[in-house]
């Protein structure tokens, strides 16, 4: 394979992994609560700032600060679901959606007020600039990010498929009343599911902090990207989100290499529209016939 193609493919996969994790959170929240979390991008930015503050404040590696970010975001997600969204769980979906949008603005503007709109960037000590392997060069921060994504995703799968609470979360997303009739407490299960979803986007954001300069509205671009990935994967389909994230990452990076960076968003969204025209429920979306 041509080295340039391989380089683009590798870069795309590494970034795509981070997208996948964030979109996994969004699709998980949708699956259980049947709402799109429009604060997902803003939560990601909160995760970035937690890493920034903890890392610079305590002088520790961002990869350790990531743990603080994960805990904070889980708590934030839990609280938002339990004390805000749950209160209007009987309201029409668009109202719940507006609530998450409101949360997004509050988070973003709080970050603006506290941290100013100035760009901030984080230097990671003892991390080489680029690793050269033959004709291919890899950003070690992206490599670490991908590794962490694999570990976190595996951990989330174990929780969802092997633990009692994880099975309850899946049961709720497949049939809410069926779960209720088996004694699942929707209020708590939803809050935990939202917490896990928020944790995903928080960790994704944390992993991007050593790669990108951060600013309070950075999450908006990721919000849309996560949304596109989750829809491509079939809203609520966990595997679909993971694979679609990688696809979007690769499309983006291929376009960047061969047509220029300004074309990548255009290509991603054009591909998105074309795929939806052919497959309206997403690449891995289930047809609605079997749903009850």
């Amino acid at each position, binding site marked *: 394979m041509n080295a340039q193609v391989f380089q683009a493919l590798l870069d795309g996969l590494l970034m795509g992994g981070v997208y996948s994790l964030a979109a996994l959170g969004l699709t998980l929240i949708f699956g259980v609560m049947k709402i799109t979390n429009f604060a997902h991008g803003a939560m990601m930015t909160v995760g970035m700032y937690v890493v920034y503050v903890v890392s610079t404040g305590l002088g520790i590696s961002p990869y350790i600060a990531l743990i603080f970010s994960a805990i904070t975001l889980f708590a934030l997600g839990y609280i938002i679901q339990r004390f805000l969204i749950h209160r209007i769980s009987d309201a029409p979906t668009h109202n719940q959606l507006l609530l998450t949008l409101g949360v997004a603005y509050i988070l973003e503007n709080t970050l603006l007020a506290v941290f100013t709109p100035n760009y901030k960037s984080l230097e990671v000590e003892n991390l080489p600039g680029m690793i050269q392997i033959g004709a291919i060069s890899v950003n070690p921060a992206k490599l670490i990010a991908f590794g962490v994504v694999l570990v976190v995703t595996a951990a989330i799968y174990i929780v969802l498929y092997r633990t*009692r609470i994880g*099975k*309850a979360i*899946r*049961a709720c997303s*497949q*049939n809410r*009343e*069926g*779960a*209720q*009739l*088996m*004694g*699942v*407490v*929707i209020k708590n299960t939803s809050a935990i599911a939202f917490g896990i979803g928020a944790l995903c986007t928080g960790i994704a954001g944390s992993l991007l902090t050593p790669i990108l300069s951060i600013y309070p509205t950075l999450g908006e671009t990721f919000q849309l990207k996560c949304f596109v990935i989750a829809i491509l994967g079939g809203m609520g389909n966990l595997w679909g989100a993971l694979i679609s994230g990688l696809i979007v990452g690769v499309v983006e990076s291929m376009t960047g290499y061969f047509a220029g960076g300004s074309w990548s968003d255009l290509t991603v969204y054009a591909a998105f529209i074309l795929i939806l025209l052919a497959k309206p429920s997403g690449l891995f979306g289930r047809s609605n016939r*079997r*749903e*009850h």
Partner: protein
Amino acid sequence: MLDIKNLCVNYGAVRIIDDVSMTVGDGEIVALIGANGTGKTTLVRAISKLNGTDSGKIFFRGEDITDASADKVVEAGIIQVPEGRKLFAQMSVRENLEMGAFAKRARGKEKENLEYVYTVFPELKSMEKMACGNLSGGQQQMVAIGRSIMACPELLILDEPSIGLSPITTQHMFEAIRLINKNGISVLITEQNVHDVLKMANRAYVMQQGRIAMSGDAKEIAQNEELKKIYLGL
């Protein structure tokens, strides 16, 4: 054990359940019959707290559960097999059954209950790994009843268990319900398949437009000519 007193349920301005009182005794099979849209499903949903009530009381073993949450009703021992089954379609048969043992009251007895489910429905054993969404209606109904047994019911509510099933499968299902009842579980069953359910039940309530129009011994109700004509359209 279940004692409903003067229960009313409104849906908007419409009264769906109008002053309904009924009881289910220990070890009984009680049938709730009546034409489509008379409020049978609303009534059993109200017992399981899937919808609210407007006035009246529901007691279970003497305890007021009118304002309890759905999970508390489950923990008290009232388990429902709902209309449409409400299975977890993308989970395997085994996982669905395991979800039945989610309630605290059933956690310790998961293994022994699973064995019991497989003695009632031996067919399920070979389908353990299949996703429930891919099963036939009859197979799904077995999983739904099996899932409810996993929850250690004291009172089992079955809402239209024969809907969409072939006559043979329906017979099979009714035999299973009889067997479950013989093991000491009380049963409240709503049915449109009046003929068969009245043969199985001890007592019956006939609902008409949200009210109890008639109640009594199931055999007597089955013989009632007026009932056959007016309420059941037989």
